[in-house]
C-alpha cells in the first residue's frame, strides 16, 4: 500500500472515475486555534511551486474562537492536486489529517474508503475524545476500520522540538501545524523553501518563535525521512502539469476580484471609490483594496450597507468608479440605493460574494442563492446586468467586463461570486493589464444640446457630466425624468417611455456580449448540463468523465446571467433534455424556464458545501439512463 491515489483506490469496490486517478485530495482538519488554514495554504503554495495543478477549499467554522476541542470549532482545508488539470477541490479526501478528535469526528465520514487518516495521538486524551462526541475511543472500536490509520504524537514531537528555543508551552504546541506540514511535504516531495520564507517573514521580530517554527517544519520532514512510517507510507512524487507558458501564482477569488476591479478602473481611465461594510465572506475585498491607495483607489468603510452603496453612487456621480461589495444580507439592504443608481443611470459595480441564507444563514458556507436578488430583487421595473464568476482566476476577467458594461451603459452591474470562490485558491497565469483593450470613459463637456438624459443612440446610455464641468450644471434624482429634458416629469406616457428605454438599454447589452458557447461536448444532443458560478468545476469534470464513458452530454456554463446571451434559448432547445445544476433551490432553473419555456430539470443542493462531481455524474446517469 502506498499513498498514490490510484493504488489506494484499487482495493475499494466503488472505483473512482479514471480521470481523477492522477490526483490526490488531502484534507487538513483541526481546532480553529491549530493553524489549519495556514498549514493548508502553505501546502497549496508549495504544491503550486511544484507545478502541480490544484484547487483548494478552506472550510471555516462559524465561530472565531470556539471552545477548544468542540466539533463546531473545527476548521478544515481541503486541497486537490495533481499532474492533470484540477477543476474542483475534490469530492472525497484520500488523506485526512486530523489534529484532534473533533476534527476526526467532523471529517472521517467524508473520507474515501481505504483512505489514510493521520492522527495526532497526543490530542486523543479521554476528555478530548468525549468532548468530540465519541462514546469510546474511535481508534479502538472499529470506527476507522475502513481506513488506514497512522498515529503520530505530533503534539509531543512539536513540544520536544520547540523546547531548546525557550518558547512557552503554548507557543511550542502551536508549532504542530508546521510539524505536520513538514511531514506532509515530505510525503509529496514538496520543497520547504517558500514556507521557510513565510515563517521568517511572519515571525521576523520574534526570534525564538520563528526558530521554533522553522525547526518544527524541518523536524516533521525529517520524521518522514527517518521513520519509514510503518512501511506503507512512501514519498510520492507527482509530475508537473504542462501549463501554458507564463508567470503563475496562486490567487484567491477575493484577490482576483479586487485586482480585476483595479484593472477595470484603469482600462476605463477612472479612479475608484470602494465603499463597503464588513461582512463575511466579502470583507477581504475591502482589505485588499484598502492597501492599494497608490492606484488611485479610495476605500471607505461606511456606517452600514446602505451608506456604502450610497457613497459609491455619490462617487460615481462625482466621476469616479463607485464600487460596493457585500454578501446577501448586505445586498438586500442596498437594493433601494441600487434603484437610485438605475433611475439616475449612474455606473456602479456591486460585488456580491454569496453565502448560505436566508437571513444570517451560514455566513461561512457557500451557496448560489442570490440570483433572484440580483436579477429581480428590487422594487419596480429595475433591470441591471448580472455577471457570475466561476473560479478564483475568472474573477479578474469578470470584474473587467463588469466595469466595461457599467461605464459604457451607465448602469449598475452586479457580480455574483460566492464564499467558495472567494476563499479558494488556484494557480493563475498572471495577466498584464495591457492584454486587455482599454475602454476609456469620455465625460460630457460639450454644452450644446446637453441635458442630463441625452442618450447615445446606440447604447442608450445617458451622458456622464460630472460636477465641476462649466456649463453642464444639472439636477438628477430618483423622481422620473422627462425623456427630452431630464427635468422632473409625472407624465404617464413619459414614464412608459422611460421604463421602456431603461429596459431596452439593458436588453441591448445582449448584443455586446459573446454568444453562449458550449463548454464541453456538442451543440446539440441528448442532454445539456447547465451551470453558472462555482459549480463550473464539478459539472465540467462530471461531463468530461461521462463523455469518456460514451454518454451524450454537454456542459453549458452561463457567465452572463442577465441579460442572457442572445442565442441561449436556441441552444438549449437543441438538446432533448436540459439539466440545471446549482447550489440553490432552483433559481437559474426558474429564470431559464421563464425566458425560454423549456422543460428543464434540476440538480439542486443547498448544504453549504460545494457540489460534488459524483452528484453530477449520478444525476446525468439518472437522466440518460444507463448508456
Amino acid at each position, binding site marked *: 500500500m502506498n499513498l498514490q491515489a490510484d493504488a489506494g483506490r484499487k482495493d475499494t469496490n466503488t472505483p473512482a472515475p479514471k480521470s481523477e486517478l492522477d490526483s490526490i485530495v488531502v484534507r487538513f482538519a483541526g481546532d480553529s486555534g491549530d493553524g489549519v488554514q495556514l498549514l493548508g495554504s502553505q501546502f497549496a*503554495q508549495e504544491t503550486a*511551486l511544484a*507545478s502541480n495543478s490544484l484547487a483548494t477549499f478552506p472550510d471555516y467554522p462559524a465561530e472565531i474562537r470556539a471552545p477548544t476541542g468542540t466539533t463546531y470549532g473545527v476548521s478544515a482545508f481541503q486541497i486537490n492536486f495533481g499532474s492533470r488539470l484540477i477543476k474542483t477541490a475534490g469530492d472525497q479526501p484520500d488523506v485526512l489529517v486530523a489534529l484532534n478528535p473533533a476534527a476526526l469526528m467532523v471529517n472521517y465520514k467524508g473520507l474515501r474508503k481505504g483512505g489514510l487518516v493521520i492522527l495526532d495521538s497526543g490530542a486523543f486524551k479521554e476528555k478530548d475524545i468525549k468532548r468530540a462526541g465519541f462514546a469510546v475511543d474511535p481508534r479502538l472500536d472499529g470506527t476507522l476500520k475502513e481506513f488506514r490509520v497512522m498515529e503520530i504524537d505530533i503534539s509531543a514531537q512539536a513540544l520536544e522540538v520547540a523546547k531548546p528555543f525557550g518558547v512557552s508551552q503554548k507557543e511550542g504546541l502551536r508549532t504542530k501545524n508546521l510539524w505536520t506540514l513538514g511531514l506532509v511535504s515530505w510525503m509529496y516531495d514538496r520543497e520547504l523553501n*517558500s514556507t521557510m520564507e513565510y515563517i521568517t517573514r511572519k515571525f521576523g521580530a520574534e526570534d525564538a518563535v520563528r526558530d521554533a517554527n522553522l525547526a518544527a517544519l524541518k523536524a516533521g520532514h525529517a520524521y518522514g525521512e527517518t521513520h519509514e512510517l510503518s512501511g506503507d507510507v512512501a514519498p510520492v512524487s507527482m509530475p508537473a502539469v504542462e*501549463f*501554458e*507558458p*507564463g*508567470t*503563475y*501564482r496562486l490567487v484567491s477569488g477575493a484577490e482576483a476580484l479586487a*485586482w480585476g476591479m483595479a484593472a477595470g478602473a484603469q482600462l476605463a481611465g477612472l479612479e475608484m*471609490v470602494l465603499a463597503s461594510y464588513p461582512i463575511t465572506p466579502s470583507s477581504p475585498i475591502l482589505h485588499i483594496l484598502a492597501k*492599494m*491607495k*497608490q*492606484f488611485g483607489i*479610495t476605500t*471607505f468603510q*461606511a*456606517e*452600514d450597507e*446602505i*451608506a456604502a452603496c*450610497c*457613497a*459609491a*453612487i*455619490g*462617487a*460615481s*456621480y*462625482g*466621476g*469616479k468608479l*463607485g464600487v460596493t461589495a457585500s454578501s446577501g444580507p448586505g445586498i438586500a439592504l442596498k437594493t*433601494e*440605493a441600487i*434603484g*437610485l443608481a438605475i433611475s*439616475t443611470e449612474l455606473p456602479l459595480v456591486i460585488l456580491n460574494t454569496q453565502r448560505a441564507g436566508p437571513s444570517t444563514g451560514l455566513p461561512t458556507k457557500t451557496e448560489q442563492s442570490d440570483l433572484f436578488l440580483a436579477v429581480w430583487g428590487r422594487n419596480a421595473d429595475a433591470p441591471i446586468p448580472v455577471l457570475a464568476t466561476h473560479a478564483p482566476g475568472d474573477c479578474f476577467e469578470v470584474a473587467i467586463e463588469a466595469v466595461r458594461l457599467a461605464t459604457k451603459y451607465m448602469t449598475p452591474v452586479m457580480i455574483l461570486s460566492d464564499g467558495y470562490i472567494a476563499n479558494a485558491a488556484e494557480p493563475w*497565469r*498572471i495577466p498584464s*493589464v495591457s492584454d486587455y483593450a482599454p475602454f476609456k470613459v469620455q465625460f460630457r463637456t460639450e*454644452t450644446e444640446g*446637453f441635458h442630463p438624459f441625452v442618450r447615445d443612440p446606440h447604447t442608450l446610455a445617458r451622458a456622464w457630466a460630472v*460636477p*465641476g464641468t*462649466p*456649463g*453642464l*450644471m*444639472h*439636477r*438628477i*434624482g*430618483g423622481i422620473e425624468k422627462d425623456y427630452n*429634458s431630464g*427635468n*422632473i416629469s409625472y407624465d404617464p406616457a413619459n414614464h412608459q417611455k422611460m421604463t421602456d428605454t431603461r429596459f431596452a438599454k439593458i436588453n441591448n447589452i445582449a448584443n455586446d456580449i459573446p454568444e453562449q458557447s458550449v463548454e464541453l461536448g456538442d451543440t446539440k444532443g441528448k442532454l445539456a448540463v447547465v451551470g453558472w458560478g462555482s459549480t463550473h468545476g464539478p459539472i465540467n469534470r462530471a461531463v468530461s468523465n461521462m463523455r469518456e464513458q460514451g454518454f451524450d452530454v454537454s456542459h453549458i456554463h452561463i457567465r452572463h446571467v442577465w441579460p442572457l446571451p442572445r442565442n441561449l434559448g436556441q441552444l438549449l432547445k437543441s438538446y432533448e433534455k436540459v439539466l440545471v445544476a446549482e447550489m440553490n433551490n432552483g433559481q437559474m432553473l426558474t429564470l431559464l424556464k421563464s425566458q425560454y419555456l423549456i422543460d428543464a430539470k434540476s440538480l439542486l443542493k443547498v448544504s453549504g458545501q460545494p457540489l460534488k462531481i459524483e452528484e453530477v455524474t449520478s444525476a446525468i446517469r439518472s437522466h440518460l439512463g444507463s448508456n
Partner: protein
Amino acid sequence: MNVTVQPDKLTAKDFASDQEVRWCPGCGDYAILKAMHKSLADMGARPENTVFVSGIGCSSRFPYYMATYGFHTIHGRAPAVATGLKLARPELDVWVVTGDGDALSIGGNHLFHALRRNVDLNILLFNNEIYGLTKGQYSPTSRVGQKSPSTPMGSVDSPANALTFALGCNARFIARGIDVQAKNLDVLFRRAREHKGASFIEIIQNCIVYNDAVFADFTEKAVADDMQLHVVHGQPMIFGKAKNKALRFNAQTFQLEAVVIGENGVTEKDILVHDEKNRVLAGLLSALRPPNFPEVLGVIYCDPATSYEAAVVAQENLAKAKGPGDLDKLMRAGNTWAVT
C-alpha cells in the same frame, strides 16, 4: 437649462434654476431658497463647483431650484451620497439639504456618521416639526401632544433636539437660523461654507399647511425680540426689546439662567460672553428652548478640526509618494513561478 457664458460677477438669479418652484404658497422653504441664491452670489461661489445633495421630503426638492449641480437622492441617505461625492471630489462645495424626518428619523445614522467623521459638508436641516410631503404625520422633532393623522390623540414620544444631537455626534460646527431671517442665514451660510469639516445648521422652517405657527412662541413679531437670542462670538448674551434680558451661568446648578439686567442685583458683568469654541457652553445653549428660555440663534459652536476627506487624501498622498501603483508588478509580488 444650459448656462454657457458665465459673467464674472454672478447675481442671485444666476443661482436660480429654470424650474417652477412647487412648494405650497407661503412655505418657509421659499425664503431659505431665496437667501441661498443671494448668499452664493455674494460669496462668489461658482455654480459648476457647487453641488446640492438632498434626501426625500419637502426640503429635499431644494436642489431642483438651484442652477448648480444637484442630486435628489433617497430618503435619509443624502449624507452618505454626499460623503461619497466628497471623497471622489474633495474640491467641490457640497451642501446637503434635509428635513427633520429625513435627517433625524430614517437617516439618523448617516447624519451621525457624517458629523462624527467631520466630512466637509454644509448640512442644512429644515426643521418644521412635521412630515409635510406625506401629509402631516408627526416627526421626531414634534413636541409631545402633537396631533397628526398618525397620532390622533397626540404624540407621546419625546422629541429630538437637532443641535444637541449634532453636538453628541461630535459636530465641530453647529448653528441655528430662522427661514425668514435672510440676513442671519447669509451669515450662517457663509460661515458654514468657510468652515472645513461638517457644518450643521438647523433652520427653523414654517410648514404653513401642516404645522403652521408651531414656532410662533418665538417667531411672532410681538415676541421675537424677547424670545430670540442671537449669539455672536465674544459678545455678551443679551437680548430683549429693552436689551436687558440675558443669560447667566449658575455655577451651583451648572445651568444657564435667564435673567434681567438691573433686577435682583444682576449687572452686565454677570452676563455670559459667547465663546463659540466652548463645547460645554454649546451644549447648554443648544438645549435651551422656549418658553422659559429664548430660542438661541447664530453660530453656537465652531471649533474646526481636520476634515475626513482631507485626512483620507493625506493618507493617499503618502501612499502615492512611494510611486504610482503598478498592477502588473503587484500581481507578480510574492511567490510566483514561470512556465516556459
